[in-house]
């Protein structure tokens, strides 16, 4: 039975998040709970946490691009990017979001995933454009508008998640490589990133179909 005690760490995670604590508090708390219940002494658990953190530092490296992106934003990069998106302004909410999905997948796949996102593109640009497009198709109440906005946010997530792994210098690819290397399985990041492509295509097809269905449901043109 005692081997199941450390699973309480998982309970800490679930409760911590359910009660809306800061993840930066919940995650180490869960690690400590798990470690202590597994019979390690506190200093040993802290040491393990430290070693794991230290071994995974390569995940931080991609932030090295921030000075370049920040500097270009100072000269109007985001405005240019918006101007480029706006050219693809489509007639319906479905088509608009499909274009954004494609754009989001492509920029994420080439490592520009942090040039878009909920604060940067969805709130100021995609959500208002989507709502405006939908309102041309059908009259919307507040709940309907919320649903269109939720579709805009969801489209950003789907585009990001199933685009970014095609870029081989992303954290998750490194994590896969590190984990497998631990078992003596050596893979290049490029080889792993290649296998993110079939899922990226499937994600595009599935989410696009749903967006077209949304268009059909809204009716209009």
């Amino acid at each position, binding site marked *: 039975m005692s081997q199941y005690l*450390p*699973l309480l*760490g*998982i309970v800490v*995670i679930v409760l911590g*998040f359910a009660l809306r604590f*800061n*993840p*930066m508090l919940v*995650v*180490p708390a*869960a*690690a400590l709970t*798990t470690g202590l219940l*597994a019979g390690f002494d506190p200093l040993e*658990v802290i*040491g393990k*946490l*430290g070693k794991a*953190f*230290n071994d995974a*530092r390569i995940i*931080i490296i991609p932030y*090295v*691009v*921030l*000075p*370049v*992106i*920040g*500097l*270009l*934003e*100072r*000269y*109007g990069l985001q405005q*240019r990017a918006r101007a*480029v998106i706006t050219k693809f302004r489509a007639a319906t909410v479905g088509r608009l979001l499909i274009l954004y999905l494609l754009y989001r997948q492509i920029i994420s796949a080439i490592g*520009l995933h*942090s040039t878009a996102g*909920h604060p940067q593109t969805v709130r100021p640009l995609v959500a208002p454009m989507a709502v405006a497009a939908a309102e041309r198709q059908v009259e919307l109440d*507040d709940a309907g508008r*919320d649903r269109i906005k939720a579709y805009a*946010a*969801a489209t950003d997530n*789907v585009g990001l*998640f199933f685009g970014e*792994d095609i870029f081989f*210098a992303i*954290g*998750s690819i490194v*994590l896969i*490589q590190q*984990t497998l290397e631990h078992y003596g399985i050596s*893979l*290049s*990041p490029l080889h792993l990133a290649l*296998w993110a492509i079939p*899922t990226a295509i*499937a994600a595009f097809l599935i989410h696009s179909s749903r967006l077209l269905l949304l268009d059909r449901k809204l009716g209009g043109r």
Partner: protein
Amino acid sequence: MITAQHIFYLVGALFGAWAILSALDRTNPKRFGNAAFWGLIALSLIAGQWIGDLANGCLVLALAALASLKLLGRGAPLTSEAEQEASGQRYGNKLFLPIVVVLLTAVLGTLLYLYTPLRETGLLEKNRETFILLCLGVLLALALIFTWLRPPALAPLQEGRRLIDAVGWAAILPLMLASLGLVLADTGVGTTIGGLLQAAIPPRTVLPAVVVYGVGMALFTILTGNAFAAFPVMATAIGVPLLIQSYGGNAAVIGAVGMLAGFCGTLMTPMAANFNLVPAALLELKDDYGVIKVQIATAIPLLLVNILIIYVAGFKL
């Protein structure tokens, strides 16, 4: 040879500079919190390999304390939207050029290094080539920007700091979760869950093992909020011992698509707060779970497709 350690020094120096500039930024009411947070990350990058596990662990706890006590803030933006708009029109699409330089250096550089005799020179640490070239690309792009646009000397550091402040503690949450995953594995939780899951798999049958691996990735991600925490556990429990070692599946497919099966879980969990709850707040939706509700009907079919890809590409091709 240029190794990962060299780029840790470079990026460590960058975080160190962000720490100093944060401390000097009077527009940020929590400037010393930011300074301490970025400073500790700089310390980890530069000296992590010498200070020992316990000191690293204390560093992790200090970062967690700074974040959970809400000691991080943001300074005022450095240029106005109107100035950026005017500047963007002036420089046009050429503004994308430095980014292209970074990407071409990383992408073409990696390809060129790995697939030509350059590799024999052993100039770059194995499997770290892309990161080293990414850093090189950044340096080249900065050189290009300085020659072309002549920004103030501190501008790249300050503008970079604006972005890292916007990301905040979430910048290292993936690292924390990776650590948690490894701790869970070290303490046998992975083996325990793996044991429970393996018990559910009929012996010597590939398909059920693939299904449990894919669904397990998604479920564990729903529980922990991040596929990064799920991956080491599921790889230890099923991916490596069963799928790769016993059944001889393609390791790249099992690793990459397994992670993507986890991402389907990310779409369905409130625990991935930064992706699912933050935008609901940002877009002022009445329902906190509005974004998740929309995502479920994409996530479930996509999970099935991922399981199919692992089965077909991992074992049948």
